[in-house]
């Protein structure tokens, strides 16, 4: 069983990440992958020039590793990978790549869903939406918090 978390300060390449993940399979019958992409519009509907992801070197990596380890404990998956951008991300560029592998598909779907909900509320990043002449820090919304709570009940 292998869980991997990585911070990526440069361009994230989901196709290359997925190829490498598939090459490392060992007897699995299912792989689920997810790509989070920077939206071109902000929370107020206006156009964005970029998204900035602030992070705490060391602590941020540890927070993502803890989330991956939790997914490995919780679901019958053989592998999990999270690659998360930091720094400036342009509109349409990938922010996060998640992949999970298991013998049967259900556990991979559940684990990928769980990983994303946890990353939204527990990974140590701070997001700033940047547009011409303004910048706004974004905090998790009610939807993010309720998505996270689903896993405490199950």
């Amino acid at each position, binding site marked *: 069983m292998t869980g991997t978390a990585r911070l990526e300060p440069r361009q994230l390449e989901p196709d290359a990440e997925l190829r490498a993940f598939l090459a490392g399979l060992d007897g699995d019958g299912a792989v689920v992958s997810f790509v*989070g992409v920077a939206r071109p519009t902000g929370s107020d509907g206006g156009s964005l020039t970029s998204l900035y*992801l*602030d*992070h*705490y070197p*060391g*602590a941020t990596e*540890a*927070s*993502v590793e803890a989330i991956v380890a939790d997914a490995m404990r919780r679901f019958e998956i053989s592998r999990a990978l999270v690659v*998360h951008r930091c720094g400036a991300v342009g509109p349409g560029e990938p*922010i*996060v790549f998640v992949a999970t592998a298991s013998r049967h598909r259900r556990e991979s779907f559940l684990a990928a869903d769980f990983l*994303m909900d946890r*990353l*939204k*509320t*527990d*990974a*140590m*990043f*701070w*997001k*700033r939406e940047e547009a011409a002449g303004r910048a706004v*820090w*974004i*905090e*998790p919304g009610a939807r*993010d918090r309720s998505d996270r709570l689903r896993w405490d009940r199950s």
Partner: protein
Amino acid sequence: MTTVLLFGRLGECFGREVAVVLPRDGWTIADLRRHLSTLVPGGEEILDSVKVRACVDQVMAEEGTMVGSGQEVAFFPPVSGG
């Protein structure tokens, strides 16, 4: 001397890094919070939020956690990844 790191919107308000000279017996996180809040206009309101949490040497801390010289402290607003 101890280093206080500030992230997200707190970094914009206070600067990424603030050096603080601690008293001989150290300070609690609550003491440090009060000290930092005097450094910028409106600092009290920015830091005196239950949503602003702290770490000492990268481990989550409570208001009563003691901080000694040479330790690394971080204050940060709610996190948001993904």
